[in-house]
């Protein structure tokens, strides 16, 4: 088993507009990307459970051309609203880093 952070070249989060948060998990090469994709460990359900959401709230994509996996969720607070803690949404990806890949 290897942690996702060991296999990805970049895991990041960012606002996708003020109302959604998006995660990009990007790989250096197709072989690593395929290994992670085939493992099924990074899935809509896995992202949902890491952020305590129902699976239907997660948009989930495999981007073969980019060797990347992408997921988007509703922001817990609208960007910049009184209870928002991360205006650019840039530090919300850490819970994805230790997903174990067989």
């Amino acid at each position, binding site marked *: 088993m290897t942690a996702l952070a060991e296999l990805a070249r970049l895991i990041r989060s960012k*606002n996708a507009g003020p109302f959604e948060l998006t995660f990009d998990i990007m790989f250096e090469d197709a072989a690593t990307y395929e290994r992670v994709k085939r493992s099924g460990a990074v899935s809509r359900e896995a992202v949902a459970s890491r952020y305590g959401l129902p699976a239907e709230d997660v948009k989930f994509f495999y981007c073969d051309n980019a060797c990347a996996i992408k997921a988007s969720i509703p922001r*817990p607070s609208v960007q910049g*609203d*009184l209870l928002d803690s991360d205006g650019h949404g840039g530090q*919300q990806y850490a819970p994805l880093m230790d997903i174990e890949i067989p």
Partner: protein
Amino acid sequence: MTEAIDEIRILAPTGVCGSGFLEESFERGLAQKPHFIGCDSGSTDPGPSHLGTGHAAFPRDAVKRDLRLMLIGARRVGVPLLVGSCGTAGGDVHLAWCYDILKEIAVTENLRFKLALIHAEQDKAYLKKRFGEGRIKPLHPAPEFNAAVIDRSECIVGMMGAEPWKRALEANADVILAGRSSDTAIFAAMPEMRGFPSGMAWHAAKILECGAAAVVNRKTPDCMFAWIRKDHFVIQAPDPALRCTPQSIASHSLYENADPFKLIECSGTLDLTNSRYEALDERSVKVSGSTFIPAERYTVKLEGAEKAGYQSIVIGSVRDPFIIRQIDDWTERLTARIHARVKQVYGERLPSDQYLLNIRIYGKNGTMGPLEPVKEIRSHELCLLIEVTAPSQDIASSIAGIIRHQGLHLPIPEWSGLITALACPYNPAHLDRGPVYRFNVNHVVEPDDPYEMFRMEFLEVNGSQFARAAA
């Protein structure tokens, strides 16, 4: 402007006017004979305060440096310069701010050109009329929207599509400054006007609008260049040290988008499902297969901000392990004590639903709040950021004074006698933040046509002379 051409060349100096680019890269881009130069100057990414206060996110001098080089370059080679989302949020005050900078440059450099200003701020009566007609529709997720929201908004802008840009170009504007615009519309307008396929135009635009962000090895913000042809486009950064690869270009469609394959614009949806990316050489990429599906109904997205109140904050840290191990209980008791003291001071004049207390605990879940999966505290110190949002700055500031004093001396059972529980790095211990704003719209308007929301004016600029001109 109507002569048929087999390719259209576009120079994007940088991802945001004010973030910078290398002059050398810009000159290389100009030497490749662009048909126009485009740049966006705003985004919602810096937050709602820019729409609310009218202030830009980038410093005036930084915007002037970039705009000056772009304007002088565009005039020297005689091609249009298109700058969208002026002043970050693209309202009238933001556009006026950018126009003021442009005027200074025109005077100093003694430049002559026809200028178009395209306004994106929305008239409240117009929005109420469209809302009443059921022609303002929510996106998902969307806050409640109605006439009261329109009334209390500081500023609501519409995000223009390519059509107002095309109209200004058709009127032979040399320089176009626009309020809030789709970033991509700035770059897609001329290619669509000149008959290039919309799929190519919008996909190239999506990459260009971020400047050199799509290269493998970006060091600083810099230029990007595209050649759009009938069935493909080629993308390359003018700086020879920067490389685009099929993967880096394909990856770019992920950035700041919820869906990496479908990008929604006013006039339709860019579909990248069947896009193909090929390396032309070690630093250029050829893209084909992207399509654009016209919308059944033209829609314009709204962005709005309203004042949420006035804020003051107290920053204090805790090092005592006794307090740290009961921090949730301690902050709950602190909150109750603050409310009790506010009630003593203000009585009925300030009901508790008129102000909001929020305690952020850094070292516990300050960064992720409710999304934080780590529940136990692993740090030997915590930073507390205690904030109050109230109907006036005076009240917020007064409550911050109460927060400081109640927080300093809130007891814990482990110690007997008066404790001082918070380490405050600043004096005075609280900071007044002034008015704070929130985004309050995530909706689209269905206008009669793509132009009715975007008032346009034309000026003939001749050094220090600015004369109204006909379209």
